[in-house]
């Protein structure tokens, strides 16, 4: 077995993941590109496990399992954030997210947008159906 083949595959997968994270506007596609990067790291770990002799046997495969668990947790929280973003702004484009923090009492600058859930408990039932009403 030539270890250079899976190593180079993993490097190219990582490069494609970086490209996807920087290029894509849709937040779900950004998460898919993050999955590509995590898979590249897993491939490196498993290949190193089979090629290198370590003090603890199979440390690479155990780490790959841990990274898979971390990826599952990351995708759960990440998709919750993306869906909440869609509920608030009716868009998942990552370059339209305002990075400056909105102060208390300031009016939402997104004209016509649905009321975010932070303005009070009374607005929360309307927040779920707001994107449909906006279209």
């Amino acid at each position: 077995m030539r270890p250079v083949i899976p190593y180079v595959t993993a490097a190219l997968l990582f490069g494609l993941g970086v490209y996807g994270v920087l290029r894509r506007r849709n937040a779900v596609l950004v998460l898919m590109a993050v999955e590509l990067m995590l898979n590249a790291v897993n491939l490196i770990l498993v290949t190193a496990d089979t090629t290198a002799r370590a003090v603890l046997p199979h440390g690479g495969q155990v780490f790959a399992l841990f990274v898979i668990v971390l990826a599952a947790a990351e995708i759960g929280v990440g998709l919750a954030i993306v869906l909440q973003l869609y509920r608030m702004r009716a868009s998942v484009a990552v370059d339209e997210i305002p990075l400056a923090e909105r102060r208390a009492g300031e009016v939402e600058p997104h004209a016509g947008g649905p009321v975010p859930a932070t303005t009070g408990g009374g607005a929360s039932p309307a927040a779920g159906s707001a994107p449909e009403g906006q279209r």
Partner: protein
Amino acid sequence: MTGVDVLLLALGAVAVGSAALVVGTRHLVRAGLYLVVCLGAVAGMYLVLAAELVAWVQVLIYVGAVVVLLLFAVMLTRAPIGASDDLDRPGWPAALIGGGAGLGLAALLVDAYRWTTVDLPAAGNAERIGEQVFSNWVLPFEVLSVLLLSALVGAIVLSRPDIGATRDDATGDRGRSR
């Protein structure tokens, strides 16, 4: 070039090609389906590399759960059926950084390993992996279970708007009774 090398080359070509389609396609749903092909090819590489437990965990969790979650998210954000034109930013910097990272790492690894050969270990190592996880790696294993629990609770809190509203409300818990 043995049969293992040919198999690894073919699976690696499939993985890289479908990954390029994931980051390059204009159809949102097709990106998720190409991701299935890519993850499946990587699982095949794990099988060839005698890491069968990792391969089946990859198939179960990635192809079975993560991609399904991603496709759910694609549908819940009302992605259009068919090609959409606004998926990409204009990206020479992205191509530069991504290509630089990928090709740089590839050059580094090619320089480190050249064309050397390594004997594959014996297949069928799920029992040994389990022994390792529950002896040497048992503390990270338990910490990961706590992390999974907190991620679960965090996802629930994020996706329930009433929880965050009552917490931020100045009146406290009385906001819920309205």
